Protein backbone atom coordinates (compact mmCIF):
# COMPACT_ATOMS: atom_id res chain seq x y z
CA UNK A 1 0.00 0.00 0.00
CA UNK A 2 2.93 2.32 0.70
CA UNK A 3 4.12 1.79 -2.89
CA UNK A 4 0.63 2.60 -4.17
CA UNK A 5 1.04 5.85 -2.25
CA UNK A 6 4.35 6.52 -4.05
CA UNK A 7 2.68 5.99 -7.43
CA UNK A 8 -0.23 8.20 -6.31
CA UNK A 9 2.08 11.03 -5.21
CA UNK A 10 4.07 10.91 -8.44
CA UNK A 11 0.97 10.94 -10.66
CA UNK A 12 -0.53 13.88 -8.77
CA UNK A 13 2.72 15.90 -8.86
CA UNK A 14 3.28 15.04 -12.53
CA UNK A 15 -0.25 16.02 -13.58
CA UNK A 16 -0.33 19.18 -11.49
CA UNK A 17 2.36 20.32 -13.96
CA UNK A 18 0.23 19.37 -16.95
CA UNK A 19 -1.89 22.15 -18.39
CA UNK A 20 -4.42 19.79 -19.95
CA UNK A 21 -4.96 17.82 -16.74
CA UNK A 22 -5.33 21.02 -14.75
CA UNK A 23 -7.78 22.54 -17.21
CA UNK A 24 -9.88 19.39 -17.11
CA UNK A 25 -9.98 19.30 -13.32
CA UNK A 26 -10.17 23.01 -12.52
CA UNK A 27 -11.58 24.97 -15.45
CA UNK A 28 -14.11 22.77 -17.26
CA UNK A 29 -16.16 22.15 -14.08
CA UNK A 30 -16.93 25.89 -13.75
CA UNK A 31 -17.98 26.09 -17.38
CA UNK A 32 -21.20 24.05 -16.99
CA UNK A 33 -22.68 25.86 -13.99
CA UNK A 34 -21.78 29.27 -15.47
CA UNK A 35 -23.46 28.42 -18.75
CA UNK A 36 -26.57 27.08 -17.05
CA UNK A 37 -26.92 30.13 -14.80
CA UNK A 38 -26.40 32.43 -17.77
CA UNK A 39 -29.12 30.65 -19.72
CA UNK A 40 -31.46 30.75 -16.72
CA UNK A 41 -30.85 34.47 -16.29
CA UNK A 42 -31.56 35.20 -19.95
CA UNK A 43 -34.69 33.03 -20.01
CA UNK A 44 -35.89 34.53 -16.73
CA UNK A 45 -35.40 38.06 -17.97
CA UNK A 46 -37.30 37.33 -21.19
CA UNK A 47 -40.23 35.84 -19.31
CA UNK A 48 -40.38 38.60 -16.71
CA UNK A 49 -40.20 41.35 -19.32
CA UNK A 50 -43.16 39.96 -21.18
CA UNK A 51 -45.12 39.17 -18.07
CA UNK A 52 -44.76 42.51 -16.30
CA UNK A 53 -43.88 45.38 -18.59
CA UNK A 54 -46.08 46.88 -21.31
CA UNK A 55 -45.88 44.94 -24.52
CA UNK A 56 -46.60 46.16 -28.00
CA UNK A 57 -49.73 44.90 -29.70
CA UNK A 58 -49.88 45.47 -33.45
CA UNK A 59 -53.51 46.09 -34.46
CA UNK A 60 -54.92 46.22 -37.99
CA UNK A 61 -58.11 48.35 -38.24
CA UNK A 62 -57.78 49.96 -34.79
CA UNK A 63 -60.06 52.79 -35.98
CA UNK A 64 -63.01 50.37 -36.10
CA UNK A 65 -62.94 49.80 -32.31
CA UNK A 66 -61.73 52.93 -30.44
CA UNK A 67 -63.26 51.91 -27.08
CA UNK A 68 -61.62 48.46 -27.20
CA UNK A 69 -58.29 50.14 -28.01
CA UNK A 70 -58.62 52.44 -24.99
CA UNK A 71 -59.41 49.44 -22.80
CA UNK A 72 -56.41 47.45 -24.08
CA UNK A 73 -54.20 50.53 -23.78
CA UNK A 74 -55.12 50.89 -20.11
CA UNK A 75 -54.30 47.17 -19.52
CA UNK A 76 -50.60 47.25 -20.37
CA UNK A 77 -50.80 46.85 -24.12
CA UNK A 78 -49.34 49.53 -26.41
CA UNK A 79 -51.39 49.68 -29.58
CA UNK A 80 -49.18 50.06 -32.64
CA UNK A 81 -49.85 49.97 -36.38
CA UNK A 82 -49.92 46.37 -37.67
CA UNK A 83 -47.59 45.23 -40.46
CA UNK A 84 -49.21 45.11 -43.89
CA UNK A 85 -49.28 41.30 -43.92
CA UNK A 86 -50.02 40.23 -40.28
CA UNK A 87 -49.87 36.48 -40.94
CA UNK A 88 -46.50 36.69 -42.66
CA UNK A 89 -45.14 38.87 -39.83
CA UNK A 90 -46.22 36.37 -37.16
CA UNK A 91 -45.00 33.40 -39.16
CA UNK A 92 -41.62 35.09 -39.53
CA UNK A 93 -41.49 35.84 -35.82
CA UNK A 94 -41.41 39.64 -36.29
CA UNK A 95 -44.48 39.89 -34.05
CA UNK A 96 -45.65 37.51 -31.30
CA UNK A 97 -49.30 38.29 -31.96
CA UNK A 98 -51.35 40.60 -34.24
CA UNK A 99 -54.97 41.68 -33.61
CA UNK A 100 -57.13 42.23 -36.70
CA UNK A 101 -60.34 44.28 -36.30
CA UNK A 102 -62.61 43.75 -39.32
CA UNK A 103 -64.68 46.63 -40.81
CA UNK A 104 -68.00 45.14 -39.59
CA UNK A 105 -66.84 45.10 -35.97
CA UNK A 106 -68.58 48.32 -34.95
CA UNK A 107 -71.85 47.34 -36.62
CA UNK A 108 -71.99 43.92 -34.94
CA UNK A 109 -70.95 45.43 -31.60
CA UNK A 110 -73.65 48.10 -31.53
CA UNK A 111 -76.37 45.67 -32.66
CA UNK A 112 -75.49 43.28 -29.78
CA UNK A 113 -74.14 40.49 -32.03
CA UNK A 114 -70.79 38.78 -31.21
CA UNK A 115 -68.31 41.23 -32.74
CA UNK A 116 -65.68 39.42 -34.88
CA UNK A 117 -61.96 39.76 -34.00
CA UNK A 118 -59.00 37.88 -35.43
CA UNK A 119 -55.96 37.00 -33.33
CA UNK A 120 -53.02 35.94 -35.48
CA UNK A 121 -50.62 33.70 -33.51
CA UNK A 122 -48.01 30.99 -34.08
CA UNK A 123 -48.95 28.17 -31.73
CA UNK A 124 -45.59 26.46 -32.15
CA UNK A 125 -43.56 29.29 -30.67
CA UNK A 126 -43.12 28.90 -26.93
CA UNK A 127 -41.60 32.32 -26.37
CA UNK A 128 -44.78 33.96 -27.70
CA UNK A 129 -47.13 32.18 -25.26
CA UNK A 130 -46.79 34.88 -22.63
CA UNK A 131 -47.64 37.73 -25.02
CA UNK A 132 -50.50 35.77 -26.53
CA UNK A 133 -51.84 34.88 -23.09
CA UNK A 134 -51.85 38.50 -21.97
CA UNK A 135 -53.70 39.69 -25.08
CA UNK A 136 -56.19 36.81 -24.70
CA UNK A 137 -56.85 37.67 -21.07
CA UNK A 138 -57.35 41.39 -21.86
CA UNK A 139 -59.81 40.60 -24.68
CA UNK A 140 -61.68 38.05 -22.52
CA UNK A 141 -62.10 40.48 -19.67
CA UNK A 142 -63.33 43.20 -22.08
CA UNK A 143 -65.80 40.71 -23.52
CA UNK A 144 -67.02 39.63 -20.08
CA UNK A 145 -67.30 43.18 -18.83
CA UNK A 146 -69.32 44.31 -21.85
CA UNK A 147 -71.53 41.21 -21.61
CA UNK A 148 -72.13 41.81 -17.91
CA UNK A 149 -73.14 45.46 -18.58
CA UNK A 150 -75.57 44.31 -21.29
CA UNK A 151 -77.18 41.75 -18.95
CA UNK A 152 -77.53 44.31 -16.18
CA UNK A 153 -79.12 46.73 -18.69
CA UNK A 154 -81.74 44.01 -19.30
CA UNK A 155 -82.27 43.44 -15.58
CA UNK A 156 -80.45 40.10 -15.33
CA UNK A 157 -77.78 39.23 -12.75
CA UNK A 158 -74.57 38.64 -14.77
CA UNK A 159 -73.64 35.79 -12.37
CA UNK A 160 -76.28 33.50 -13.91
CA UNK A 161 -74.15 33.00 -17.03
CA UNK A 162 -71.29 31.58 -14.99
CA UNK A 163 -72.33 27.97 -14.53
CA UNK A 164 -68.97 27.05 -13.06
CA UNK A 165 -66.68 28.92 -10.69
CA UNK A 166 -63.23 27.61 -11.49
CA UNK A 167 -60.24 28.36 -9.33
CA UNK A 168 -56.95 26.95 -10.56
CA UNK A 169 -54.61 25.86 -7.75
CA UNK A 170 -50.99 25.49 -8.88
CA UNK A 171 -49.32 22.84 -6.71
CA UNK A 172 -45.87 23.53 -8.06
CA UNK A 173 -43.75 25.12 -5.35
CA UNK A 174 -41.63 28.02 -6.55
CA UNK A 175 -38.63 25.70 -6.31
CA UNK A 176 -40.15 23.03 -8.53
CA UNK A 177 -41.08 25.62 -11.15
CA UNK A 178 -37.46 26.72 -11.40
CA UNK A 179 -36.39 23.08 -11.33
CA UNK A 180 -38.02 22.62 -14.70
CA UNK A 181 -35.11 24.59 -16.07
CA UNK A 182 -32.65 23.28 -13.52
CA UNK A 183 -33.26 19.74 -14.76
CA UNK A 184 -30.11 20.25 -16.79
CA UNK A 185 -27.99 20.40 -13.64
CA UNK A 186 -27.55 16.60 -13.23
CA UNK A 187 -26.05 16.59 -16.71
CA UNK A 188 -23.33 18.99 -15.62
CA UNK A 189 -22.59 17.03 -12.46
CA UNK A 190 -22.11 13.83 -14.46
CA UNK A 191 -20.03 15.76 -16.99
CA UNK A 192 -17.74 16.99 -14.20
CA UNK A 193 -17.23 13.41 -12.97
CA UNK A 194 -16.33 12.07 -16.40
CA UNK A 195 -14.08 15.00 -17.36
CA UNK A 196 -12.19 15.91 -14.18
CA UNK A 197 -9.76 12.99 -14.21
CA UNK A 198 -9.88 12.26 -17.91
CA UNK A 199 -6.42 13.50 -18.88
CA UNK A 200 -4.77 12.01 -15.82
CA UNK A 201 -6.37 8.64 -16.64
CA UNK A 202 -4.98 8.82 -20.18
CA UNK A 203 -1.58 10.15 -19.12
CA UNK A 204 -1.16 7.39 -16.53
CA UNK A 205 -1.99 4.56 -18.95
CA UNK A 206 -1.85 5.09 -22.72
CA UNK A 207 0.43 8.11 -22.19
CA UNK A 208 2.79 6.17 -19.92
CA UNK A 209 3.07 3.46 -22.57
CA UNK A 210 3.49 5.89 -25.46
CA UNK A 211 6.33 7.67 -23.64
CA UNK A 212 8.07 4.33 -23.12
CA UNK A 213 8.07 4.68 -19.34
CA UNK A 214 5.61 1.85 -18.68
CA UNK A 215 8.07 -1.00 -19.21
CA UNK A 216 10.70 0.45 -16.86
CA UNK A 217 7.97 1.12 -14.30
CA UNK A 218 6.80 -2.49 -14.41
CA UNK A 219 10.32 -3.79 -13.68
CA UNK A 220 10.22 -2.21 -10.22
CA UNK A 221 9.44 -4.48 -7.23
CA UNK A 222 5.84 -3.33 -7.04
CA UNK A 223 2.73 -5.47 -7.45
CA UNK A 224 0.58 -4.54 -10.42
CA UNK A 225 -2.41 -3.91 -8.18
CA UNK A 226 -0.34 -1.36 -6.26
CA UNK A 227 0.46 0.50 -9.49
CA UNK A 228 -3.21 0.43 -10.47
CA UNK A 229 -4.26 1.58 -6.99
CA UNK A 230 -1.91 4.59 -7.18
CA UNK A 231 -3.12 5.61 -10.62
CA UNK A 232 -6.75 5.02 -9.62
CA UNK A 233 -6.30 7.14 -6.51
CA UNK A 234 -4.71 10.04 -8.38
CA UNK A 235 -7.45 10.01 -11.03
CA UNK A 236 -10.09 9.92 -8.29
CA UNK A 237 -8.52 12.90 -6.57
CA UNK A 238 -8.71 14.99 -9.74
CA UNK A 239 -12.26 13.77 -10.38
CA UNK A 240 -13.32 14.62 -6.82
CA UNK A 241 -11.84 18.11 -7.14
CA UNK A 242 -13.82 18.55 -10.34
CA UNK A 243 -17.06 17.29 -8.73
CA UNK A 244 -16.72 19.42 -5.58
CA UNK A 245 -15.85 22.44 -7.67
CA UNK A 246 -18.93 21.98 -9.85
CA UNK A 247 -21.22 21.66 -6.84
CA UNK A 248 -19.59 24.67 -5.19
CA UNK A 249 -20.00 26.67 -8.38
CA UNK A 250 -23.68 25.77 -8.50
CA UNK A 251 -24.12 26.55 -4.80
CA UNK A 252 -22.43 29.94 -5.11
CA UNK A 253 -24.07 30.91 -8.37
CA UNK A 254 -27.57 29.88 -7.32
CA UNK A 255 -27.29 31.79 -4.08
CA UNK A 256 -25.43 34.88 -5.31
CA UNK A 257 -26.85 35.51 -8.75
CA UNK A 258 -30.39 36.98 -8.44
CA UNK A 259 -31.98 34.04 -10.22
CA UNK A 260 -35.06 34.31 -8.03
CA UNK A 261 -35.72 37.86 -9.17
CA UNK A 262 -35.46 37.12 -12.85
CA UNK A 263 -37.41 33.85 -12.72
CA UNK A 264 -40.02 35.39 -10.47
CA UNK A 265 -39.51 32.63 -7.91
CA UNK A 266 -37.50 32.03 -4.76
CA UNK A 267 -34.63 29.55 -4.69
CA UNK A 268 -33.32 28.16 -1.42
CA UNK A 269 -30.65 25.70 -2.44
CA UNK A 270 -28.71 25.65 0.79
CA UNK A 271 -25.58 23.91 2.01
CA UNK A 272 -27.58 20.86 3.04
CA UNK A 273 -28.93 20.37 -0.46
CA UNK A 274 -25.48 20.37 -2.00
CA UNK A 275 -24.02 18.15 0.71
CA UNK A 276 -26.77 15.62 -0.03
CA UNK A 277 -26.14 15.84 -3.77
CA UNK A 278 -22.42 15.27 -3.11
CA UNK A 279 -23.10 12.12 -1.09
CA UNK A 280 -25.42 10.80 -3.80
CA UNK A 281 -22.93 11.49 -6.61
CA UNK A 282 -19.66 10.35 -4.98
CA UNK A 283 -20.29 6.65 -5.82
CA UNK A 284 -20.25 7.64 -9.51
CA UNK A 285 -16.56 8.57 -9.07
CA UNK A 286 -15.87 4.96 -8.09
CA UNK A 287 -17.49 3.89 -11.34
CA UNK A 288 -16.20 6.54 -13.76
CA UNK A 289 -12.50 6.35 -12.83
CA UNK A 290 -11.93 2.58 -13.32
CA UNK A 291 -13.97 2.77 -16.51
CA UNK A 292 -11.72 5.55 -17.83
CA UNK A 293 -8.54 3.71 -16.82
CA UNK A 294 -9.78 0.49 -18.40
CA UNK A 295 -10.59 2.13 -21.72
CA UNK A 296 -7.43 4.24 -21.77
CA UNK A 297 -5.18 1.28 -20.86
CA UNK A 298 -6.78 -0.80 -23.57
CA UNK A 299 -6.17 1.68 -26.39
CA UNK A 300 -3.02 1.90 -28.49
CA UNK A 301 -2.22 5.58 -28.15
CA UNK A 302 -2.88 8.78 -26.23
CA UNK A 303 -4.84 10.10 -29.21
CA UNK A 304 -7.08 7.03 -29.40
CA UNK A 305 -7.70 7.09 -25.65
CA UNK A 306 -8.60 10.76 -25.88
CA UNK A 307 -11.11 10.04 -28.64
CA UNK A 308 -12.91 7.41 -26.57
CA UNK A 309 -12.78 9.19 -23.23
CA UNK A 310 -14.14 12.46 -24.58
CA UNK A 311 -17.15 10.54 -25.93
CA UNK A 312 -17.68 8.83 -22.57
CA UNK A 313 -19.44 11.73 -20.72
CA UNK A 314 -22.08 11.81 -23.43
CA UNK A 315 -23.32 8.28 -22.67
CA UNK A 316 -24.51 8.83 -19.08
CA UNK A 317 -25.55 12.37 -19.99
CA UNK A 318 -28.12 11.16 -22.50
CA UNK A 319 -30.66 10.18 -19.85
CA UNK A 320 -29.93 13.52 -18.18
CA UNK A 321 -30.91 15.39 -21.32
CA UNK A 322 -33.98 13.17 -21.55
CA UNK A 323 -34.87 14.12 -17.96
CA UNK A 324 -34.80 17.80 -18.80
CA UNK A 325 -37.72 17.36 -21.15
CA UNK A 326 -39.54 14.26 -19.89
CA UNK A 327 -39.19 13.99 -16.12
CA UNK A 328 -39.21 10.33 -15.01
CA UNK A 329 -40.89 9.46 -11.74
CA UNK A 330 -38.37 7.98 -9.31
CA UNK A 331 -38.77 4.21 -9.53
CA UNK A 332 -36.61 1.36 -8.32
CA UNK A 333 -35.85 0.09 -11.83
CA UNK A 334 -34.38 3.47 -12.77
CA UNK A 335 -32.09 3.35 -9.72
CA UNK A 336 -30.54 0.14 -11.05
CA UNK A 337 -29.12 1.97 -14.07
CA UNK A 338 -25.84 3.50 -12.88
CA UNK A 339 -25.67 7.31 -13.28
CA UNK A 340 -29.33 7.45 -14.39
CA UNK A 341 -30.59 6.76 -10.88
CA UNK A 342 -28.28 9.40 -9.43
CA UNK A 343 -29.50 11.97 -11.92
CA UNK A 344 -33.10 11.38 -10.87
CA UNK A 345 -32.06 11.62 -7.22
CA UNK A 346 -30.21 14.92 -7.80
CA UNK A 347 -33.38 16.22 -9.41
CA UNK A 348 -35.49 15.20 -6.43
CA UNK A 349 -33.10 16.81 -3.96
CA UNK A 350 -33.09 20.02 -5.98
CA UNK A 351 -36.87 20.06 -6.03
CA UNK A 352 -36.85 19.87 -2.27
CA UNK A 353 -38.53 16.46 -2.29
CA UNK A 354 -37.67 13.71 0.17
CA UNK A 355 -35.62 10.93 -1.43
CA UNK A 356 -36.38 7.31 -0.60
CA UNK A 357 -33.48 5.70 1.32
CA UNK A 358 -34.15 2.49 -0.63
CA UNK A 359 -33.58 4.36 -3.90
CA UNK A 360 -30.34 5.94 -2.68
CA UNK A 361 -29.17 2.56 -1.37
CA UNK A 362 -29.99 0.74 -4.61
CA UNK A 363 -28.36 3.35 -6.86
CA UNK A 364 -25.24 3.46 -4.65
CA UNK A 365 -24.94 -0.32 -4.36
CA UNK A 366 -25.25 -0.99 -8.09
CA UNK A 367 -22.77 1.76 -8.94
CA UNK A 368 -20.18 0.71 -6.36
CA UNK A 369 -20.41 -2.99 -7.25
CA UNK A 370 -19.93 -2.18 -10.93
CA UNK A 371 -17.00 0.10 -10.02
CA UNK A 372 -15.32 -2.70 -8.04
CA UNK A 373 -15.80 -5.12 -10.94
CA UNK A 374 -14.24 -2.60 -13.34
CA UNK A 375 -11.33 -2.05 -10.94
CA UNK A 376 -10.70 -5.81 -10.89
CA UNK A 377 -10.68 -5.76 -14.69
CA UNK A 378 -8.10 -2.93 -14.73
CA UNK A 379 -5.83 -4.90 -12.38
CA UNK A 380 -6.19 -7.98 -14.56
CA UNK A 381 -5.38 -5.96 -17.67
CA UNK A 382 -2.24 -4.61 -15.97
CA UNK A 383 -1.20 -8.13 -15.00
CA UNK A 384 -1.23 -9.26 -18.61
CA UNK A 385 1.79 -8.93 -20.91
CA UNK A 386 -0.45 -7.14 -23.38
CA UNK A 387 -0.39 -4.03 -21.19
CA UNK A 388 3.03 -3.31 -22.78
CA UNK A 389 1.47 -2.96 -26.21
CA UNK A 390 -2.20 -2.05 -25.72
CA UNK A 391 -4.97 -3.66 -27.72
Amino acid at each position, binding site marked *: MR*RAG*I*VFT*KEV*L*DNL*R*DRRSLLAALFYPILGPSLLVLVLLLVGRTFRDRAESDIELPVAGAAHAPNLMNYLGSHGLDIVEAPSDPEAAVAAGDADVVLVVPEDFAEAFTSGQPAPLQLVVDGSRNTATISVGRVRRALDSYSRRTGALRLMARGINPAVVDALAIEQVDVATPQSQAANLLNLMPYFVVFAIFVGGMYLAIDATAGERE*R*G*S*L*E*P*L*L*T*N*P*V*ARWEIVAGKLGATMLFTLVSLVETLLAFAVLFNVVPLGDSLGIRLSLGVGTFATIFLITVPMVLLAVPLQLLIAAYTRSFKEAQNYLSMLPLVPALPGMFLAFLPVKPALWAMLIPTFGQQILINQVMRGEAVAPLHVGAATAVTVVLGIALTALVVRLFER*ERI*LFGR
Partner: protein
Amino acid sequence: MIEARGLRKAFGTVVAVDGVSFTAPDGRVTGLLGPNGAGKTTALRIVCTVMRPDAGWVRVDGFDPVTDPREVQRRLGVLPDAHGLYPRLTSRENVRYFGRLHGLHGADLDARIERLVSLLDMADIADRRSEGFSHGERMKVALARALVHDPQNVLLDEPTNGLDVMSTRALRDIIRRLREDGRCVLFSSHVMQEVAALCDDVVIVAGGRVVADGTPEDLRRTTGCDTLEDAFVAVLGTAEGLD
Protein backbone atom coordinates in the same frame (compact mmCIF):
# COMPACT_ATOMS: atom_id res chain seq x y z
CA MET B 1 24.14 -14.14 -11.85
CA ILE B 2 21.53 -14.71 -14.53
CA GLU B 3 20.83 -18.15 -15.99
CA ALA B 4 18.38 -18.97 -18.75
CA ARG B 5 17.57 -22.46 -19.97
CA GLY B 6 15.46 -23.45 -22.95
CA LEU B 7 13.50 -20.20 -23.13
CA ARG B 8 10.65 -20.26 -25.63
CA LYS B 9 8.14 -17.52 -26.37
CA ALA B 10 5.66 -17.28 -29.22
CA PHE B 11 3.32 -14.45 -30.21
CA GLY B 12 0.51 -16.12 -32.13
CA THR B 13 2.23 -18.13 -34.81
CA VAL B 14 5.49 -16.19 -34.63
CA VAL B 15 8.10 -17.85 -32.42
CA ALA B 16 10.25 -14.98 -31.12
CA VAL B 17 12.47 -17.02 -28.79
CA ASP B 18 12.99 -20.70 -29.53
CA GLY B 19 15.07 -22.55 -26.96
CA VAL B 20 17.52 -19.88 -25.82
CA SER B 21 19.97 -20.77 -23.03
CA PHE B 22 22.80 -18.70 -21.62
CA THR B 23 24.58 -17.90 -18.38
CA ALA B 24 25.70 -14.41 -17.36
CA PRO B 25 28.03 -14.77 -14.35
CA ASP B 26 28.91 -12.09 -11.79
CA GLY B 27 31.92 -9.90 -12.53
CA ARG B 28 31.61 -10.37 -16.27
CA VAL B 29 29.95 -8.56 -19.14
CA THR B 30 27.80 -10.85 -21.26
CA GLY B 31 26.58 -9.66 -24.64
CA LEU B 32 23.56 -10.93 -26.53
CA LEU B 33 24.46 -10.23 -30.12
CA GLY B 34 22.17 -10.70 -33.07
CA PRO B 35 20.42 -9.01 -35.95
CA ASN B 36 17.21 -7.03 -35.39
CA GLY B 37 14.30 -9.37 -34.72
CA ALA B 38 16.56 -12.17 -33.44
CA GLY B 39 14.62 -12.36 -30.15
CA LYS B 40 17.07 -10.49 -27.89
CA THR B 41 14.52 -8.02 -26.51
CA THR B 42 11.96 -10.77 -25.83
CA ALA B 43 14.58 -12.83 -23.98
CA LEU B 44 15.50 -9.82 -21.81
CA ARG B 45 11.82 -9.09 -21.15
CA ILE B 46 11.40 -12.62 -19.82
CA VAL B 47 14.39 -12.11 -17.51
CA CYS B 48 13.06 -8.80 -16.18
CA THR B 49 9.59 -10.25 -15.32
CA VAL B 50 7.43 -8.31 -17.80
CA MET B 51 6.90 -11.43 -19.92
CA ARG B 52 6.40 -15.09 -19.09
CA PRO B 53 8.14 -17.84 -21.06
CA ASP B 54 6.00 -20.49 -22.76
CA ALA B 55 8.70 -22.99 -21.82
CA GLY B 56 12.10 -22.97 -20.12
CA TRP B 57 13.17 -21.05 -17.03
CA VAL B 58 15.24 -18.15 -15.76
CA ARG B 59 17.06 -17.72 -12.44
CA VAL B 60 18.33 -14.37 -11.21
CA ASP B 61 20.59 -15.01 -8.22
CA GLY B 62 18.59 -18.20 -7.88
CA PHE B 63 15.13 -16.58 -8.02
CA ASP B 64 12.53 -17.39 -10.69
CA PRO B 65 10.93 -14.32 -12.36
CA VAL B 66 7.64 -16.22 -12.78
CA THR B 67 7.19 -17.36 -9.20
CA ASP B 68 9.28 -14.73 -7.37
CA PRO B 69 9.00 -11.55 -9.44
CA ARG B 70 9.51 -9.22 -6.46
CA GLU B 71 12.83 -10.86 -5.47
CA VAL B 72 14.04 -10.76 -9.08
CA GLN B 73 13.01 -7.11 -9.52
CA ARG B 74 14.92 -6.13 -6.36
CA ARG B 75 18.12 -7.70 -7.77
CA LEU B 76 17.79 -6.27 -11.27
CA GLY B 77 18.52 -2.87 -12.75
CA VAL B 78 16.88 -2.62 -16.14
CA LEU B 79 17.43 -0.24 -19.03
CA PRO B 80 14.76 -1.52 -21.45
CA ASP B 81 14.60 -0.83 -25.16
CA ALA B 82 11.88 1.74 -24.42
CA HIS B 83 13.37 3.79 -21.59
CA GLY B 84 11.11 6.82 -21.65
CA LEU B 85 11.19 9.42 -18.90
CA TYR B 86 8.42 11.53 -17.37
CA PRO B 87 8.85 14.79 -19.30
CA ARG B 88 7.29 16.99 -16.62
CA LEU B 89 9.60 15.64 -13.89
CA THR B 90 13.21 16.73 -13.46
CA SER B 91 16.02 14.20 -13.86
CA ARG B 92 16.34 13.96 -10.10
CA GLU B 93 12.59 13.41 -9.67
CA ASN B 94 12.58 10.71 -12.34
CA VAL B 95 15.36 8.83 -10.53
CA ARG B 96 13.83 9.44 -7.10
CA TYR B 97 10.49 7.94 -8.19
CA PHE B 98 12.09 4.59 -9.02
CA GLY B 99 14.32 4.75 -5.95
CA ARG B 100 11.26 5.15 -3.75
CA LEU B 101 9.51 2.25 -5.52
CA HIS B 102 12.57 0.19 -4.53
CA GLY B 103 11.90 1.12 -0.93
CA LEU B 104 14.63 3.76 -0.64
CA HIS B 105 13.93 7.12 0.99
CA GLY B 106 15.33 10.06 2.87
CA ALA B 107 19.00 10.92 3.10
CA ASP B 108 20.10 7.50 1.87
CA LEU B 109 18.16 7.95 -1.39
CA ASP B 110 19.39 11.53 -1.82
CA ALA B 111 22.99 10.39 -1.36
CA ARG B 112 22.61 7.62 -3.93
CA ILE B 113 21.10 10.06 -6.45
CA GLU B 114 23.95 12.49 -5.77
CA ARG B 115 26.52 9.74 -6.45
CA LEU B 116 24.83 8.81 -9.74
CA VAL B 117 24.62 12.45 -10.80
CA SER B 118 28.39 12.80 -10.47
CA LEU B 119 29.16 9.30 -11.81
CA LEU B 120 27.09 9.92 -14.95
CA ASP B 121 28.23 13.55 -15.21
CA MET B 122 24.69 14.91 -15.26
CA ALA B 123 24.91 17.83 -12.81
CA ASP B 124 23.82 20.30 -15.50
CA ILE B 125 20.58 18.45 -16.20
CA ALA B 126 19.82 17.11 -12.72
CA ASP B 127 17.22 19.75 -11.86
CA ARG B 128 15.85 20.37 -15.33
CA ARG B 129 12.59 18.84 -16.49
CA SER B 130 13.40 16.05 -18.92
CA GLU B 131 11.19 17.46 -21.66
CA GLY B 132 13.37 18.13 -24.70
CA PHE B 133 16.43 16.23 -23.45
CA SER B 134 18.84 14.93 -26.08
CA HIS B 135 19.11 11.21 -26.66
CA GLY B 136 22.30 11.01 -24.60
CA GLU B 137 20.81 13.00 -21.72
CA ARG B 138 17.73 10.77 -21.64
CA MET B 139 19.91 7.66 -21.60
CA LYS B 140 21.91 8.99 -18.63
CA VAL B 141 18.77 9.62 -16.59
CA ALA B 142 17.32 6.23 -17.54
CA LEU B 143 20.57 4.55 -16.54
CA ALA B 144 20.68 6.42 -13.23
CA ARG B 145 17.08 5.30 -12.67
CA ALA B 146 18.05 1.68 -13.38
CA LEU B 147 21.04 1.79 -11.00
CA VAL B 148 19.55 3.80 -8.13
CA HIS B 149 18.98 0.72 -5.92
CA ASP B 150 22.51 -0.55 -6.56
CA PRO B 151 21.43 -3.81 -8.24
CA GLN B 152 23.65 -6.88 -8.42
CA ASN B 153 22.47 -7.62 -11.96
CA VAL B 154 22.19 -5.04 -14.72
CA LEU B 155 20.18 -5.56 -17.91
CA LEU B 156 20.78 -3.18 -20.83
CA ASP B 157 18.75 -3.54 -24.02
CA GLU B 158 20.51 -1.90 -26.98
CA PRO B 159 21.95 0.79 -24.68
CA THR B 160 24.07 2.53 -27.31
CA ASN B 161 21.26 2.97 -29.84
CA GLY B 162 21.30 6.54 -31.14
CA LEU B 163 24.07 7.70 -28.80
CA ASP B 164 26.86 9.98 -29.95
CA VAL B 165 30.53 9.07 -29.52
CA MET B 166 31.00 10.82 -26.18
CA SER B 167 27.89 9.27 -24.65
CA THR B 168 28.90 5.84 -25.91
CA ARG B 169 32.32 6.17 -24.30
CA ALA B 170 30.72 7.27 -21.02
CA LEU B 171 28.41 4.27 -21.13
CA ARG B 172 31.32 1.89 -21.72
CA ASP B 173 33.08 3.34 -18.69
CA ILE B 174 30.02 2.69 -16.54
CA ILE B 175 29.72 -0.88 -17.78
CA ARG B 176 33.42 -1.59 -17.03
CA ARG B 177 33.05 -0.04 -13.60
CA LEU B 178 30.07 -2.30 -12.89
CA ARG B 179 32.12 -5.32 -13.89
CA GLU B 180 35.00 -4.26 -11.60
CA ASP B 181 32.43 -4.01 -8.78
CA GLY B 182 31.64 -7.69 -9.37
CA ARG B 183 28.23 -7.04 -10.93
CA CYS B 184 26.60 -9.20 -13.56
CA VAL B 185 26.05 -7.16 -16.71
CA LEU B 186 23.89 -8.56 -19.50
CA PHE B 187 23.39 -6.40 -22.53
CA SER B 188 22.02 -6.82 -26.00
CA SER B 189 23.26 -5.21 -29.15
CA HIS B 190 23.24 -5.56 -32.89
CA VAL B 191 26.40 -3.43 -33.05
CA MET B 192 29.42 -5.68 -33.32
CA GLN B 193 32.00 -3.12 -32.24
CA GLU B 194 30.12 -2.65 -28.99
CA VAL B 195 30.25 -6.31 -28.20
CA ALA B 196 33.86 -6.65 -29.30
CA ALA B 197 34.91 -3.69 -27.16
CA LEU B 198 33.13 -4.70 -23.96
CA CYS B 199 32.14 -8.29 -23.67
CA ASP B 200 33.82 -11.06 -21.75
CA ASP B 201 31.30 -13.54 -23.09
CA VAL B 202 29.25 -13.39 -26.27
CA VAL B 203 25.98 -15.16 -27.02
CA ILE B 204 25.06 -14.94 -30.69
CA VAL B 205 21.31 -15.13 -31.29
CA ALA B 206 19.59 -15.46 -34.65
CA GLY B 207 16.03 -16.49 -35.50
CA GLY B 208 15.20 -16.98 -31.83
CA ARG B 209 18.04 -19.51 -31.26
CA VAL B 210 21.54 -19.37 -29.84
CA VAL B 211 23.85 -20.13 -32.75
CA ALA B 212 27.15 -19.75 -30.89
CA ASP B 213 28.55 -18.65 -27.56
CA GLY B 214 31.86 -18.26 -25.78
CA THR B 215 34.54 -15.63 -25.27
CA PRO B 216 35.45 -13.51 -28.30
CA GLU B 217 38.71 -15.49 -28.32
CA ASP B 218 36.84 -18.83 -28.39
CA LEU B 219 34.65 -17.64 -31.25
CA ARG B 220 37.59 -16.53 -33.33
CA ARG B 221 39.36 -19.82 -32.76
CA THR B 222 36.42 -22.14 -33.44
CA THR B 223 35.47 -20.33 -36.63
CA GLY B 224 39.06 -19.98 -37.72
CA CYS B 225 38.61 -16.30 -38.39
CA ASP B 226 41.13 -13.53 -37.73
CA THR B 227 38.65 -10.90 -36.56
CA LEU B 228 35.50 -11.06 -34.49
CA GLU B 229 33.56 -9.59 -37.38
CA ASP B 230 34.49 -12.44 -39.66
CA ALA B 231 33.63 -14.87 -36.89
CA PHE B 232 30.13 -13.38 -36.59
CA VAL B 233 29.51 -13.58 -40.29
CA ALA B 234 30.76 -17.17 -40.25
CA VAL B 235 28.39 -18.34 -37.48
CA LEU B 236 25.39 -16.39 -38.75
CA GLY B 237 25.95 -17.40 -42.35
CA THR B 238 25.08 -13.85 -43.26
CA ALA B 239 25.91 -10.35 -42.06
CA GLU B 240 22.34 -9.23 -42.53
CA GLY B 241 21.12 -6.90 -39.82
CA LEU B 242 24.52 -6.47 -38.23
CA ASP B 243 26.37 -3.17 -38.28
